[in-house]
């Protein structure tokens, strides 16, 4: 995996905010556009009912996960695909290494996929001596930059148009002031060579329909279609939570996901892959491998509160609306999944101690509750992990003592109001800076002014 360091969130977010103001501008405007499109697209359908339906379908699939996964495996095998079960990232990468060795793979093309990012597929392929090319435009940009994606749907949204102009000028020789169309055309030309040369195509999977063994992929650029049909071999990495019972369920889920993600009624391209090409077919890979990946998902499923996060369809809508995410973009979160969804699955998938402070990277404003197409109660899950952290003793001593003392006071009204009076004696600006909680406040803001007298005093004196 490229980098897993959520623990550095505070430092990383502060650094982005202070040193890279352009990131905040790019992320802010891109996410606001995404969200405005979502609002419009949700407005065109009875989105409340669709969301109820989608929640129920995904919940049903998750509560019968084993059954549907086995059904999907059976169908895929019958369709002529190979199916692999990967408990860990290492297992998944081993499958890939076998395919590479058996087919003597030299170069690969890859469609946008967060799971392959989570698994560290690119690094692994390079270690195996395979040249791998990201073919989604945004992914291509960040691959050239050597950066991980900063958003589930728009991997390069932290970059401005000028950033891309400079990058393409250096790598592809486009004019320094090229139009976005020219830049896209230049990328397309460069990528065409990679598509033609590749003997392996790699993809993720947005959904897996059990009844037919169908891997469904949504995209806008046609690069996934090419990556999964041109090369001889196709390997699809699919998270086990992507399962849905029936092919029929896809019709609603594909539409709702597109509306939530980009505001489109449906993605420009939807590929439904059931296996290798048949004898009658001209196009398509000779061999298809579907790797069903767990990598921490069953652990999340075992958590009786946080399992709901597995309904996620990775639409990015919660990132787009999140005022915390908007300040920094995704890199500060320190692992593949950022924003609200990243903060609620990190503790389940990485372990709580490693995931902190991500569950605290939220003001609990609740904006994400209104947008999630599968109704994941994100703030409740954040609270759940915070409670878990307290229970496991993963908080600072200062905070624990502070809150316990505060609680003890709050149960004794006389002591509470006496303590309140002390606020007027607090050395707000000077000594306060070294105190744990007050210090954090004063770092970024002027000292608050307590009222001259508390309301309690005013009340006792009589209010006119």
């Amino acid at each position: 995996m490229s980098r897993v360091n959520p623990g550095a969130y505070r430092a990383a977010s502060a650094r982005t905010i202070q040193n890279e103001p352009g990131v905040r501008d790019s992320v802010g405007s891109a996410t606001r556009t995404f969200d405005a499109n979502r609002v419009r697209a949700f407005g065109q359908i009875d989105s409340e009912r669709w969301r109820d339906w989608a929640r129920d379908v995904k919940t049903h699939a998750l509560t019968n996960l084993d059954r549907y996964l086995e059904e999907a495996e059976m169908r895929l095998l019958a369709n002529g695909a190979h199916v692999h079960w990967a408990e860990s990232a290492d297992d998944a990468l081993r499958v890939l290494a076998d395919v590479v060795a058996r087919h003597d793979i030299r170069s690969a093309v890859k469609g946008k996929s967060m799971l392959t990012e989570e698994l560290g597929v690119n690094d692994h392929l390079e270690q195996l001596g395979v040249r791998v090319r990201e073919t989604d435009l945004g992914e291509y940009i960040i691959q050239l930059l050597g950066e991980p994606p900063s958003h589930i749907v728009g991997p390069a949204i932290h970059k401005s148009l000028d950033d891309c102009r400079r990058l393409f000028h250096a790598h592809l020789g486009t004019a320094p002031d090229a139009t976005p169309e020219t830049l896209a055309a230049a990328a397309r030309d460069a990528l065409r060579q990679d598509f033609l040369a590749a003997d392996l195509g790699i993809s993720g999977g947005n959904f897996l329909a059990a009844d037919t063994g169908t891997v469904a992929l949504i995209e806008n650029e046609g690069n996934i279609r090419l990556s999964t049909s041109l090369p001889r071999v196709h390997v699809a990495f699919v998270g086990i939570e992507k399962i849905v019972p029936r092919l029929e369920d896809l019709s609603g889920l594909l539409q709702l996901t597109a509306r939530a993600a980009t505001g489109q009624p449906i993605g420009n391209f939807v590929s439904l892959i059931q296996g290798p090409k048949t004898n009658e077919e001209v196009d398509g890979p000779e061999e298809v491998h579907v790797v069903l990946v767990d990598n921490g998902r069953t652990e999340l499923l075992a958590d009786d509160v946080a399992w709901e996060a597995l309904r996620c369809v990775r639409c990015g809508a919660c990132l787009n609306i999140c005022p915390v995410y908007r300040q920094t973009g995704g890199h500060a979160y320190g692992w593949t999944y950022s924003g609200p969804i990243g903060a609620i699955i990190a503790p389940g998938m990485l372990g709580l101690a490693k995931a902190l402070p991500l569950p605290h990277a939220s003001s609990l404003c609740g904006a994400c509750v209104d947008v999630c197409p599968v109704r994941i109660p994100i703030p409740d899950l954040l609270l759940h992990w915070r409670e878990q952290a307290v229970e496991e003793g993963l908080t600072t001593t200062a905070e624990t003592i502070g809150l316990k003392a505060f609680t003890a006071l709050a149960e004794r009204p006389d002591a509470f109001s006496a303590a309140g009076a002390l606020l007027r004696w607090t050395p707000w600006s000077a000594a306060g800076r070294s105190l744990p909680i007050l210090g954090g406040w004063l770092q970024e803001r002027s000292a608050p002014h307590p009222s001259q007298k508390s309301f309690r005093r005013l009340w006792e004196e009589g209010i006119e």
Partner: protein
Amino acid sequence: MTMRVALFATCLADQFFAEACADAVRLLRHLGVDVDFPERQTCCGQPAFNAGYKAEAARMAAHTLSVFEDAEYVVLPSGSCAGMIRSYYSEISDEGPALDLGKRTFELSQFLVHVLNVETLGRGLSGKTVAYHHGCHALRELGVDSEPIALLSGAGAQVVPWEADKECCGFGGLFSAKLPEVSAAMADRKLDTLPNVDFVTSGDGGCLLQLSGRSQRRRVGASGVTTPFRHIASALWEGVG
């Protein structure tokens, strides 16, 4: 028979917005309500609850439940604390009494519009331009949206559109101290989009402290004064005229 209301000042407003609490009392009395201030009240428990200290929050909830056991209505100058009681008390304390208290609990502007059926207070804000900040919990937990704006406009104020009026200010209780840089950047977004108005108002003291504190910090060394930030209780009392 006069209506009786117990004011839950909330720990933050008691100390930082004492005059606004007094204005809430004046406003309610002006509207013919008998206001009581149960003296044993302290904190609703929200800071502990949001930080994950469920057991501690439960103790404060139990205390608050006992304080307001007999109140006909509980009115708070805070959407956030009202939201805590309404949405979360049933999770952390006796469900029956918690739900019952929830039904009797209102944020100030919500109480004026939905219980007292106030349409207009007076014309005391004539000629004033105002920006209203929607506290997240008032908006999303209580559904308080048009109420404060209707009351402000009804009193003659011109409520100026604000692009970021429904975005979080970045307070979030301990969040503001744990992740101060992100929290401040959130406040900056609010302040950067703030229209030119006579004052900014909101129903939550926490948000007002965050926005005014950040606004003052940004002006340090720069000329000019910051836009005043006022609690809605004071704005509405002025609205009576």
